[in-house]
């Protein structure tokens, strides 16, 4: 459905089967599929984890935790069954990559789940898709059926003597469920309210058993690591940031799209060369580098490599790979408001700093953008956001606060331009914004 794009700088490792009909198992096998699972069976649990550690793969959901290390936290002995849970609840605004994986290469997700299961001694994996992705659930269900029919799932997989079940599962609309503990709650048939940690899911997770939870892109990358080797995979990226990732370019760009680029690829180049630059000869105003929760970067801050460490050093986060580009027609107050409106809508309401914080911030930003702002509101917005940081059950509070603080810090002048009932300097956007608030 979604159009595929291509650029010469891309390294198509994870996406090399996209557009080739690999949703069918025969095509997937023809293109080298399920060889990595066989290799992993031979390697055994310790060998798999060692290879994963060598790959320097870091979680593609946003936090960037080293995947091999995550897997190694699961206790070898457990009275309760262990589980693998794939997070396909993709809903961080600006992010649309997992969709392409499920659509074009669903077997890579299944193969990744099998390998993760072998690594921790699990016999069951779940693939959780957001409810909006119904057409992808159908593709995933068919792929799972095919894998069962071939003997790659079920009893005695690949003739190894091991059993492994995979179940695909649909959500029903909730950003919050992308948070790992809320995801488990949702899969257990409950409201997606986060759990307090510790205990961490690696010890007490789904149904009380040790569980590893990985983003869909992380899991889909796993078979490719075993295809080319962990060390080779690591070499594609930068130090401590192995491999490639799918970057979702959106916003004011000539050629938006999802591109697979090496970790550490220069952000400026990504915008001006891969994405084709800003249309209509407009000027770049700001970049949200990794989904809506990541602090905004100014044009003079984007000459950086896109890996977890370099973007972190620049004061933001690599996040989920959603690069959102803003030109000089965008009103930053309106943009901050739309971002907050989202987090207010998605806050589960369980803990007060997030529930009240997002609500007050949306109210204040709405009044502010509509021309009813007062000078003290600007510091109040920042103060409210700063007081949410680190005070919530789960990272949703931080996700709402972080970008807000950066908007006020870096675009204070634009907030001031809205004072004294002055009309929004970006009035052509204002009418529509007011009508939807």
């Amino acid at each position, binding site marked *: 459905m979604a159009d595929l794009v291509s650029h010469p700088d891309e390294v198509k490792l994870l996406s090399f089967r996209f557009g080739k009909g690999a949703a069918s198992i025969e095509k997937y096998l023809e293109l080298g599929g399920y060889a990595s699972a066989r290799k992993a069976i031979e390697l055994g649990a310790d060998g798999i984890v060692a290879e994963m550690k060598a790959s320097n793969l870091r979680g593609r959901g946003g936090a960037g935790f080293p995947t091999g290390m995550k897997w190694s936290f699961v206790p070898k002995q457990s009275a309760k069954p262990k589980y693998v849970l794939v997070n396909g609840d993709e809903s961080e*605004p600006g992010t649309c990559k997992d969709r392409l994986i499920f659509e074009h290469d669903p077997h890579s997700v299944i193969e990744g789940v099998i390998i993760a299961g072998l690594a921790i001694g699990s016999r069951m994996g779940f693939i959780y898709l957001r409810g909006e992705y119904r057409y992808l659930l159908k593709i995933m269900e068919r792929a799972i059926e095919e894998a069962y029919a071939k003997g790659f799932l079920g009893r005695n997989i690949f003739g190894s003597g091991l059993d492994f079940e995979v179940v695909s599962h649909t959500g029903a609309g909730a950003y919050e469920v992308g948070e790992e503990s809320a995801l488990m709650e*949702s899969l257990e048939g409950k409201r997606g309210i986060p759990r307090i940690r510790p205990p961490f899911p690696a010890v007490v997770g789904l149904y009380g058993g040790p569980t590893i939870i990985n983003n869909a892109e992380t899991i889909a990358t796993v078979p490719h690591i075993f295809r080319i080797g962990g060390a080779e995979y690591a070499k594609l990226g930068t130090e401590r940031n192995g491999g490639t990732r799918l970057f979702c370019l959106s916003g004011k760009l000539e050629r938006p799209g999802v591109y697979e680029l090496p970790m550490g690829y220069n952000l400026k180049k990504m915008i001006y060369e891969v994405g084709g630059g800003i249309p209509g000869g407009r000027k770049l105003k700001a970049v949200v580098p990794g989904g809506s929760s990541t602090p905004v970067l100014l044009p003079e801050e984007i000459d950086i490599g896109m890996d977890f460490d370099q973007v972190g050093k620049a004061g933001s986060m690599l996040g989920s790979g959603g690069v959102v580009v803003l030109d000089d027609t965008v009103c930053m107050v309106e943009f901050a408001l739309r971002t907050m409106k989202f987090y207010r809508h998605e806050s589960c309401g369980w803990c007060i700093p997030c529930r009240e914080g997002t609500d007050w911030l949306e109210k204040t930003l709405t009044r502010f953008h509509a021309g009813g702002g007062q000078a003290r509101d600007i510091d109040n917005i920042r103060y409210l956001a700063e007081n949410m940081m680190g005070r919530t059950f789960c990272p949703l509070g931080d996700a709402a606060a972080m970008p807000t603080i950066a908007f006020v810090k870096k675009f204070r002048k634009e907030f001031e331009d809205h004072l004294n009932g002055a009309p929004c300097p970006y009035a052509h956007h204002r009418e529509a*914004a007011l009508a939807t608030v």
Partner: protein
Amino acid sequence: MSGDSSESKTIFSPALAARFDRLVGLYPVRRSALIPMLLYAQDEIGCISDEAVAEIARRIQITELDVRNVISYYSLLHTEPHGKFHVQVCTNISCMLRGGNELFEHCKRRLGVGNKETTPDKLFSLEEVECIGACSWAPAVQVNYDFHENLTPESMDRVLDDYRARS
């Protein structure tokens, strides 16, 4: 195992009832089947009616209150019917930057309804939604489960006309 529920009366089609029988046995606990069941029930009967709540509670073996508690959390689940074609316009950041707000306004005018309203002929309902994962192909709309991307007001009209013709 799940013979009780399939033998007793069901408000769902035989195919869906059989699917529910399978679903409750698929997970380590029955309750894990709840959210998919609610969504599939809604797909078949248009919303999650009182009868659907009662039957699903019975199948999962939890209280109706537990079921309603879950329904109220998830944005896709609803207890009142939508239009036959539920038009969901994304206005989140990536869509907003490429005309999502204007597209939403256009849909309001074109359909003559506001946010979360249904046309008198029950054909269309409209909703402003959060990110649907189509950021690189913005602005985007989902009609029921189908994605429509890279839209303009003109192409949106064609999309709506196509659905109208299909009714």
